[in-house]
């Protein structure tokens, strides 16, 4: 037996495979990073949308004032006059990450601005997420599947939509944290190493810091543990994977101010503790089973069950009483709307009013995960052959995330990694089967090393398909070094020390004769497999084309700058920044600006002015106050705003250029939210026969409300008719004057209009009006001009 020579050759090949896999991973990282740069290249390096502006502002504060001030930051420039405790109400993960990045760069004297770091945080972390996906899938199904899944995730449109350069949002970092936590959980489950269990708790801590979606982890992992226990897969590894996570993870989570005692008090975390108790009981039972004889064990079981039942009933009764005492059963509004999709629209209009909290449509699935939707079922089947602890986790992950993505568009983001992982498994398994059938039927290929072919096929073939995928059909010469990448992956997964890894590999190689025959049986006809491979590559190509299109066209717009292509070239609508820049430079520093909450974050970040409400939406009453003001006639609205010290009112109006997401289209939500708190605002008053309209058929309440007036003030003079391009109709009330507000700024395309509250009139006016009227009847007509002010 030329075992030593054989081992040498194969370890060399193994090293080769590792190097190739490393370079493929590097390329995947670059791909993930660079596909997200379309927005910078097409537009500019700028922060996108709404929430990122808040995160950017927080990061600026952090880098300027340091971490301690950050924790204690009370922001008085928002939610006037209440203010907001930023340090205690924000998930600090993203901010701290970018702040640390910036700090490292600056201490190396690389003068990047905070903005630049913020813009590129998301692409960097999507590269990390791709690598984490590789690790996770590798734990589940081997290197080939890992690489495939990583490629798929690097460019899945759903994730791109939240992580293009400039989209500086929690999700960008959180998805990485999510996948990485899952990876460490699976790794611990496979190795039973306490080291990974600790890392897992820390990764979970990072996830808690980053995103409210951490509750998904703390519910999914207990579910999986429970599944394992129920299906009789309990092992000490499972215990090590779970128990430290719950204990350490909960302790760490409670350190994050925004979570605090919620980590033990709210019902979202309840499942984890319940399963923690169960797994401890099960562990005890297994231990006792080991030391007792079967007969004694039976006695013990009956004893414990009779006592345990009593205790359990008591505990559960107490728990139920506790939980039921809270009106929402201890669940937060967002979680409840996940469990009951109709909850939000019934009780919390503010959650329902956000478009990303709506359920998705079928086209949005196709848009966001594309061909993966077809590969997912195949992947689930592949997970069942054979079903291991790890692959059952993947199945559970995909099943739950499909449900959640069906409830909220936003959670499509959690579904996308699961889809990538299962599709990666499916694709790699398919390539595995097809390429192996080709190999066994082509005498030239299989003649080379018949024994090798059998045992390495699983690793080699997939790696080969990988190179095909990433480098788009490189020449088949690549296949030679890349076969063998991760042979014996499934056997060597349980090792931890680098040292003995080598030894094992040599040993384990000798026992690989058996599977050869089994695999020979699974051979498909040559022609069929060639065609199938071709079709799979075509499918992959289609996916790549779609992703690049999505990244370049659909998701790259920063939404504060709009562009349109007309016959005379590109037209840029930069109205938002025009208005914010005007506010920033031409109003007093302490002036308060009122607008609908959508524009709160942008106003504080870009215009640096105090706002009444912003996108945080923590105080429903305050938002309802603004909504009420917007839906009231001019005078009451002026009174409301004046009582809030508001000096400027900002409205977004798209009627001139046809920008559909303007305030008139959001107006019904203002009415609804306002009416929810102040009952004198009634939604039917604004609707004509249940229809929302602003033309001549509109109700007088609608035509007299502040939002209508501020939007359409002097609009009719632009074209003589007052034709609204968004609503495709002529407006109802065309000529009117403002008595309590004056226009101070309107942007180039009229998209943002800013009004100033006129100073209050002299108080004596109302009293003296009547007597004055009599008196002035005799005086000359000249006096009537100055009647507004009796002192002149």
């Amino acid at each position: 037996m030329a075992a030593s020579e054989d081992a040498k050759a194969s370890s060399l090949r193994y090293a080769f495979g590792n190097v190739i896999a490393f370079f493929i991973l590097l390329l995947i990282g670059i791909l993930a990073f660079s596909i997200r740069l379309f927005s910078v290249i097409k537009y500019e390096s700028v922060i996108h949308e709404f929430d990122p502006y808040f995160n950017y502002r927080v990061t600026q504060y952090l880098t300027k004032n340091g971490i301690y001030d950050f924790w204690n930051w009370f922001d008085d420039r928002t939610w006037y006059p209440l203010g907001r405790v930023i340090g205690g109400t924000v998930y600090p993960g993203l901010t701290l990450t970018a702040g640390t990045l910036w700090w490292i760069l600056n201490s190396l004297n690389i003068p990047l601005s905070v903005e630049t770091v913020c813009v590129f945080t998301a692409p960097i972390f999507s590269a990390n997420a791709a690598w984490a996906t590789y690790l996770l899938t590798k734990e589940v199904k081997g290197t080939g599947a890992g690489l495939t899944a990583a490629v798929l995730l690097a460019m899945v449109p759903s994730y791109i939509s939240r992580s293009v350069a400039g989209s500086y949002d929690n999700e960008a970092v959180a998805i990485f944290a999510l996948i990485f936590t899952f990876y460490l959980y699976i790794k611990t489950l496979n190795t039973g190493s306490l080291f990974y269990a600790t890392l897992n708790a820390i990764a979970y801590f990072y996830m808690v810091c980053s995103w409210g979606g951490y509750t998904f982890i703390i519910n999914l992992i207990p579910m999986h543990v429970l599944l394992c226990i129920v299906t009789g897969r309990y092992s000490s590894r499972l215990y090590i994977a779970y128990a430290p996570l719950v204990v350490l993870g909960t302790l760490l989570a409670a350190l994050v101010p925004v979570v605090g005692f919620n980590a033990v008090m709210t019902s979202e975390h309840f499942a984890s503790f319940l399963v923690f108790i169960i797994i401890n009981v099960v562990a005890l039972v297994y231990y006792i089973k080991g030391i007792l004889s079967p007969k004694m064990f039976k006695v013990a079981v009956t004893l414990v069950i009779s006592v345990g039942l009593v205790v359990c009933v008591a505990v559960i009764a107490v728990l139920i009483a506790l939980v039921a005492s809270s009106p929402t059963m201890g669940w937060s509004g967002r979680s409840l709307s996940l469990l009951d999709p109709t909850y939000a629209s019934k009780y919390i209009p503010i959650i329902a009013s956000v478009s990303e909290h709506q359920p998705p449509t079928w086209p949005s699935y196709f848009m966001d995960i594309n061909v993966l939707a077809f590969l997912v079922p195949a992947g689930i089947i592949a997970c069942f052959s054979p079903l291991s602890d790890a692959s059952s986790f993947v199945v559970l992950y995909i099943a739950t995330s499909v449900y959640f993505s069906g409830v909220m568009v936003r959670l499509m983001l959690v579904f996308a990694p699961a889809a990538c992982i299962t599709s990666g498994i499916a694709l790699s398994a398919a390539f595995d089967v097809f390429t192996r059938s080709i190999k066994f039927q082509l005498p030239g290929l299989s003649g080379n090393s018949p024994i090798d072919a059998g045992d390495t096929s699983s690793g080699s073939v997939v790696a080969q398909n990988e190179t095909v995928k990433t480098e788009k059909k490189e020449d088949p010469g690549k296949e030679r070094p890349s076969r063998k990448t991760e042979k014996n992956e499934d056997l060597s997964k349980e090792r931890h020390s680098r040292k003995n890894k080598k030894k094992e590999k040599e040993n384990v190689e000798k026992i690989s004769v058996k599977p050869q025959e089994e695999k020979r049986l699974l051979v498909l006809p040559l022609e069929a497999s060639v065609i199938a491979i071709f079709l799979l590559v075509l499918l992959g190509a289609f996916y790549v084309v779609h992703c690049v299109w999505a990244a370049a066209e659909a998701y790259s717009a920063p939404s504060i700058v709009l562009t349109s292509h007309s016959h005379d070239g590109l037209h840029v609508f930069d109205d938002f920044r025009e208005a914010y820049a005007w506010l920033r430079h031409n109003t007093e520093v302490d002036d308060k600006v009122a607008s609908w909450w959508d524009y709160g974050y942008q106003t504080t970040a870009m215009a640096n002015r105090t706002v009444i409400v912003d996108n945080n939406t923590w105080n429903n009453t305050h938002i309802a106050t603004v909504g009420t003001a917007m839906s009231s006639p001019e005078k009451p609205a002026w009174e409301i705003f004046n009582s809030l010290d508001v000096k400027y009112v900002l409205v977004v109006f798209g009627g001139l250029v046809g920008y559909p997401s303007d305030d008139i289209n959001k107006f019904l939500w203002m009415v609804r939210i306002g009416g929810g708190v102040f009952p004198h605002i009634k939604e039917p008053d604004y609707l004509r026969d249940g229809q929302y309209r602003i033309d001549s058929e509109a109700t007088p309440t609608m035509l007299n409300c502040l939002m209508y007036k501020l939007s359409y003030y002097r609009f009719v003079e632009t074209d003589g008719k007052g034709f609204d391009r968004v609503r495709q109709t002529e407006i109802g009330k065309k000529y009117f004057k403002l008595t309590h507000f004056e226009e101070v700024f309107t942007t180039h395309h009229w998209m943002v209009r800013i009004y100033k509250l006129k100073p209050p009139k002299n108080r004596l006016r109302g009293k003296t009006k009547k007597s004055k009227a009599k008196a002035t009847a005799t005086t000359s007509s000249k006096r009537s001009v100055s009647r507004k002010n009796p002192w002149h």
Partner: protein
Amino acid sequence: MGIRFDLFLLSIAVLCAPCLSDLVLSKVDRRIDLTSQIVRFTSTLKVENIGSDPVSEVLLPFPDHQAKNLAYLAATTNEGKGKTKGSTASLPVEVVHPKGMPPALTWYSVSLPKGLGQGESLTLDVLAVFMHALRPFPEKIPQDQPQRVTFQDSAHYLSPYVVKVQLLSVKLPPDTKLESHTKLEKTEVSGSEIKYGPYENLPSFSYSPIIVHFENNQPFAVAQELVREIEISHWGNVQVTEHYNLIHGGSQLMGEFSRLEYQARPQIRGASAFRHLVAKLPPRAHSVYYRDEIGNISTSHLWGDSRKTQLEIEPRYPMFGGWRTAFTIGYGLPLKDFLFQSEGKRFLNISFGSPIKDLAIDCLIVKVVLPEGSKDVSASVPFHVKQWHEIKFSHLDIIGRPVVVLEKMNVVQEHNQQFQVYYKFNNLSLLREPLMLISGFFFLFVAYIVYMHADLTISKSSASYMAKLQWDEIQTAIQQVLSIINRCLTIHDRLEATLRDLSRTGDVQACKAARKAADGLLKELSKELKPLLTFLHSCPQAAQILPKVEELVAKERELQEKLMAKHSTVVDSYEKKSGGREIENRIASIQQKLKALRQEVEDLIEVIDEI
């Protein structure tokens, strides 16, 4: 009103002041240019010495309220009287405080190149540039009104010397509407020009205030602060970054701003506003950008030819009176156009002021960032500026880059003169940063290699480490055992296969041979197995797993024996030509046991494997 009263006082004070010198201005020709927001006085003075002593300086007084807005003052002399006009030489001008002079005057003294002897005369051209000399009146206007400004000065030339003949012409913007002007004797308005004079034989310090009120819709762009940062990179680039803080310095906008009216008739409803600014950048400027703190501003145009690069920028919104904005312009310039060498020193030669036309700058700070490692830094500027040094840390710097900071108040177009910054720099310093990067990555890789090869275990003699090592060995041994057992099992399979062959072909000899071979192989394997088992026996740690392993080996041996027995029985019965039924009967019991054993062995393998 206050100022007018001041002027009145001043003129009284001025009239009673003494005449101090023997100089006489035989002819004064003043032209005041009011076409833009910056007021330019061009005066031609014919100076004559009628005294006996030679005079070497000429005094130029300005009232304080003017002097504080004085941005630029230059005096040149024309010696060659027309023919050799090229020989104009600018003369040094400095602030002096002569004694016994009336208050509220600021004095500048022009030193003449050579003393002016008795009876000699000289023509001086004095250019004085004032900022903020035009006062908007009314101060607040609604959107649809044009902007009107007033200008105040004296019709007579304010001078400590007697003026023989003096002329004043005030030039207004073309096609402007003159609201009002002070009418003195000999005042004449022709087109957009107002002429005062000639006045003859004016005593010293004569003063006769005039006010011109007229429409001026020129852009009143005032940069309250402008920071220009010029960074030299010896890799071939000079990067200029200019941070503007701009205000419209004219009449403030009162009341509403209606975009509708502005868009409908921008010339009338937004007459006082300015929409764009034009910057004339040096030729071959590249990578031009125009942005503010919230991102790129898309409204700009760039043209370039071999002599200049012209950048037209529009602020985000039209600038009405009193409105402010802030933005940044940046561009790169080729190094060889601006950096020169002389006497072992390098020097940068670049213009001082802003490239934007018609811009008044209240405070200009120019920072020249020299490459790291520059020494002996000095700057030479043709006019007086405040100067100091700073250190700036930029890309991978260790000791920082020396920065020369020049600060000057009241800067206008006339200050766009070249200035020089001298320094010494060794070209080898250029390579420092690339080398730093290379070595950084090199050490990273080396550290990784070392980490991969070094054993970083804390203690090699500790019990847990030894235990771990041993455990590793045990695991290897067990793996080997398992592989051997597996091989035995494959041999068993092969034996079974020969039996099947036998039933098909009836070749007893081949079957026997196969059995022999298998027997040999199995013996060899069991020999291999022995040292492993003894090793496992010797290890205390293996105690928990040992029974399982031993059980496995025993079961396997039993399996072997049974199989051999079965084999020999089958072969024997074939030799005896027994019937198929009979053979089956004979081996049925063995077959069952075999199956059970096989199952047990496989279970055991799995169990051990999991450990």
